[in-house]
């Protein structure tokens, strides 16, 4: 019989034991009777000989060795009975714990996926990124989310490295798969030929790329798609191989599908289509960056050779770096720029967890939120510990009796712990469900149309270990002290003091008060945090961006297919502008090269003259058409707007903002002054005349201060492409003019993408909203928990002092006096809690500083507000028991004695 059989067949076992012993006694007695002993006496002797059947049975049970488990089962059953007698307590306790553990688990799960989990490929721990070590001062154009290298550098690395058994390069890129009309971008990746082989990702069906697919000037026509894309677009049909898909209107044959687990090498995204790098010129046409040596867009990854260390691989790369950068220097660089470029050194960086913008953006917020959620759980544990303490002291007598009749203390502690274990396990089980829901919600909250997130929220051992650990921790936190307390009584004393004393026992109360003080302290930290993040969000949202955000539509029109010759681009775009302006409801429209607050930026160094050697610093730049300032509601302070007269070949002009004027012209009116912008090639520096001064605005990020800004006229750009962005301001709802815009440009068969400026700005504040929302939620939860904790303790105190209050009332105390006594006691607890909490909040505030906008983490006003909020809630919570105490009927209270 195995141990679990013995456990489950306990009842049967006990019956058998009973029968066995009865047999023994009967036989013994029978023999004695046969020898002539009186039957009653014979039974007595037999029983004496065996020494008490119950004791023998108990020892036999012990001998089975499953005693602890049997006890556990018994304890758990007993606890279930106790909890069912008090369902309100059980429900509140389990829900509180589930919420606390669930919030922690959800946030941990997100952190785990973006930070700890390795890529879903073969031996990810062997992967390393190959990057420029200290890549400061790089110039050129930077596209894709991870613009680490140029194609020329990558090809050199591939050919000259020796420490890796294989290398590949890749770049995330939006692929427009619409065959006509509005753009439909999917997540694409450019990959070098060995991408799948080096990662060790086999095809699910068909084949993956090999180095033969990625040859310079390839007529590449093959595409590999992800499992998700296969399911979503082709219903998982196996005849997908050989079907065609269009990327930027170029046809590709689908040659393979990757396995479901492979989402690419970027955590937080899932790729849908992979194309070989060599096909980039085909897809991008005149915008191609493949052969441009100052075009940064690739990331390189290698798999370490067996036996090679990071240091060896890095040393090898350092050794070949001069040759690599010498062979890939952009020809347009002047001598100084080229020398700087040649000085770069390659290094080896961790690659097992891939790239992740999500990680960069949310690692800090999530870590902080995990801390906050941990505090909430602590407060919740404090509450439950307090409730269990109250019940433990109510059961003091029971414990005393049980100790007196010989129960061991350890056994009683185990029994009491079983109850908290039950609560913790039930809470944790529910928490897993809550966590799943919460994590999914958080991912969808952070996911936007521009940045669709994909996070693999599979439950893994790390998460289970985390939840299990939390459950055990909560069990110990809420149960151990009450259990030890309850069983520490000396049986005699406890039995003697069965009645109530005049006042409550101070010593045993100290711990409960300490718990409440810590709860108040922790919740002050959380309420402060919540207010800080709420104020920070309010500040960043309500600040003046310097331009109008409402009723502006961003229309991105790519009309490559209209085949407009380069010489006609300008007049074509101005014509398009006129057509948009003629749409009924459109107040004003203009072109822009930079859409504000999208993160895209353009900056160059400023020189006071084309010949100047030293630049006084950089400025941000935007290229716009006339009417931009009217469209965006930017005030023209001095000078004029751009006009048709500012043409190619004419004198170069610019409009600057006030910060620019302050920085470079000491705040004097700069109109009529000249400056130049440092080009990559010094011979291209030209003198620019300032013709206007405008008010300041935000540029690429709502969190940054208004930067110096130079506006250049669209009409002086000699290299316009067939891709133009319009800002369209409307006096009617934006949905009303959307179709009209589509209508106006239909004849061009363009790729059209419309977005609302307000949405663009709001999506840039996701991290702020996440912090404000979750910390607010935690703050409310904490304040609620702490006030119920305070309520519980004050109620209990009041109950314990009923006699005292009865006497006081009998001696003539007014209800007001009693309220004062109780409120004073609550006030003392609150004061201690707030003092400790303020100290904690100040100590911890540095953690939050980098996530706050426009205010200091130790903002005294916020702290004060938190104190007031918490004090009000606490006063309310202790008011109720105080009022109850004031209504003490002295006769009733004293009669109970």
């Amino acid at each position: 019989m195995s141990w679990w059989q013995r456990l489950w067949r306990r009842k049967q076992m006990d019956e058998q034991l009973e029968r066995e012993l009865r047999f023994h006694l009967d036989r013994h007695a029978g023999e004695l009777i046969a020898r002539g002993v009186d039957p009653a006496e014979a039974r007595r002797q037999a029983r004496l000989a065996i020494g008490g059947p119950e004791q023998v049975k108990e020892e036999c049970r012990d001998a089975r060795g499953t005693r602890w488990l049997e006890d556990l089962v018994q304890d758990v059953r007993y606890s279930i009975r106790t909890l069912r007698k008090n369902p309100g307590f059980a429900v509140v306790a389990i829900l509180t714990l589930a919420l606390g553990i669930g919030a922690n688990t959800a946030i941990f799960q997100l952190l785990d996926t973006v930070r700890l989990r390795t890529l879903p490929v073969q031996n990810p721990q062997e992967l390393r990124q190959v990057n420029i070590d200290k890549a400061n001062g790089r110039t050129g154009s930077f596209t894709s989310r991870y613009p680490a290298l140029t194609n020329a550098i990558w090809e050199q690395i591939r050919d000259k490295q020796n420490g890796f058994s294989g290398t590949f390069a890749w770049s995330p890129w939006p692929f427009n798969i619409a065959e006509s009309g509005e753009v439909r971008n999917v997540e694409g990746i450019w990959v070098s030929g060995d991408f799948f082989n080096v990662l060790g990702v086999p095809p699910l069906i068909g084949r993956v790329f090999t180095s033969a697919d990625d040859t310079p000037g390839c007529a590449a026509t093959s595409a590999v798609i992800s499992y998700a894309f296969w399911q979503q677009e082709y219903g998982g049909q196996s005849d997908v191989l050989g079907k065609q898909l269009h990327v930027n209107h170029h046809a590709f044959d689908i040659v393979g599908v990757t396995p479901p687990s492979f989402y690419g090498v970027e955590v937080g995204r899932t790729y849908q289509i992979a194309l070989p790098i060599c096909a980039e010129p085909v897809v991008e046409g005149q915008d191609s960056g493949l052969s441009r040596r100052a075009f940064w867009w690739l990331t390189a990854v290698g798999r370490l050779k067996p036996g090679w260390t990071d240091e060896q691989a890095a040393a090898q790369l350092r050794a070949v770096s001069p040759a690599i950068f010498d062979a890939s220097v952009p020809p347009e660089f002047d001598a100084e720029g080229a020398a700087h470029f040649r000085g770069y050194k390659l290094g080896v960086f961790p690659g097992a967890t891939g790239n992740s913008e999500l990680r960069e953006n949310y690692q800090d917020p999530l870590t902080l939120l995990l801390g906050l959620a941990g505090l909430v759980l602590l407060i919740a544990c404090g509450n439950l510990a307090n409730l269990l303490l109250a019940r433990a002291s109510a059961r003091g007598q029971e414990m005393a009796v049980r100790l007196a009749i010989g129960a061991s203390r350890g056994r009683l502690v185990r029994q009491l712990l079983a109850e908290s274990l039950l609560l913790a396990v039930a809470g944790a089980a529910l928490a897993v469900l809550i966590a799943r829901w919460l994590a999914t919600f958080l991912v969808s909250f952070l996911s936007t149309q521009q940045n669709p997130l994909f996070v693999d929220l599979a439950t893994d051992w790390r998460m289970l270990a985390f939840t299990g650990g939390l459950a055990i921790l909560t069990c110990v936190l809420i149960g151990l002290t009450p259990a030890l307390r309850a069983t520490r009584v000396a049986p005699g004393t406890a039995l003697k003091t069965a009645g109530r004393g005049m006042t409550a026992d101070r010593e045993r109360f100290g711990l409960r008060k300490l718990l409440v003080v810590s709860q108040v302290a922790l919740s002050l930290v959380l309420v402060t945090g919540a207010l800080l993040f709420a104020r920070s969000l309010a500040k960043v949202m309500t600040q003046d961006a310097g331009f109008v955000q409402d009723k502006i539509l961003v229309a991105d029109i790519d009309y490559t297919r209209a085949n407009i010759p380069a010489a006609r681009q300008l007049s074509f775009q101005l014509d398009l502008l006129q057509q948009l302006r003629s749409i009924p409801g459109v107040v004003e429209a203009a072109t822009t090269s930079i859409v504000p607050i999208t993160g895209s930026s353009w900056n160059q160094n400023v020189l006071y003259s084309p010949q100047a050697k030293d630049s006084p610093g950089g400025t941000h730049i935007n290229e716009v058409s006339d009417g931009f300032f009217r469209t965006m509601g930017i005030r023209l302070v001095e000078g004029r707007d751009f006009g048709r007269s500012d043409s190619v070949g004419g004198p170069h002009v610019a409009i600057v903002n006030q910060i620019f004027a302050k920085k470079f012209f000491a705040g004097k009116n700069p109109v009529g002054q000249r400056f130049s912008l440092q080009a990559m090639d010094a011979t291209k520096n030209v003198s620019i005349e300032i013709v206007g001064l405008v008010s300041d605005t935000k540029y690429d990020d709502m969190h940054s201060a208004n930067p110096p800004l130079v506006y250049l006229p669209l009409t002086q750009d000699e290299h316009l492409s067939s891709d133009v962005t319009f800002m369209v301001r409307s006096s009617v709802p934006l949905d009303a003019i959307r179709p009209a815009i589509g209508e106006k440009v239909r004849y061009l068969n363009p790729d059209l993408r419309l977005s609302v400026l307000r949405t663009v700005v709001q999506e840039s504040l996701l991290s702020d909203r996440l912090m404000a929302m979750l910390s607010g939620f935690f703050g409310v939860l904490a304040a609620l928990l702490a006030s119920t904790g305070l309520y519980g303790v004050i109620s209990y105190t009041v109950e314990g002092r009923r006699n005292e209050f009865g006497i006081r009332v009998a001696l003539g105390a007014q209800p007001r006096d009693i309220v004062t006594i109780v409120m004073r006691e609550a006030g003392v607890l609150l004061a201690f809690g707030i003092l400790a909490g303020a100290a904690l909040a100040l100590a911890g505030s540095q953690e939050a500083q980098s996530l706050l906008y426009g205010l200091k983490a130790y903002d005294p006003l916020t702290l004060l507000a938190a104190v007031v909020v918490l004090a009000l809630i606490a006063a309310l919570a202790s008011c109720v028991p105080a009022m109850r105490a004031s209504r003490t009927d002295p006769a009733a209270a004293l009669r109970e004695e």
Partner: protein
Amino acid sequence: MTEKSDLPQGTLDLLILKVVALGPVHGYAIAQRLQQVSRDVVQVQQGSLYPALHRLENRGLLEADWRESETGREARFYSLTRRGRAQLEAEAASWERLTQAVGLILGLSEPLVPGGAE
């Protein structure tokens, strides 16, 4: 009445194994057998017999099943498992060694000289 002495620690298990080794037997019979064979010298606390039986069963040295006893009433019969038999042999051998050694020392009439016993 002869003077009774308590069993040395750990020997109860050995005695039980030995008795059971003679064939399947129930608890009461084991108690009687122990008393008989030790000629009423060894006092086996009947109360400690059953916990010992259950412990040995739990350790896999004994197994038990319900059979009809000599009186016709069902009783729990214990028998030796293979592991039990091995254990009995090992313990009996070690007991033998121990008693020989103890007897040797107690039977000495002269001081022990290394290499010069008897």
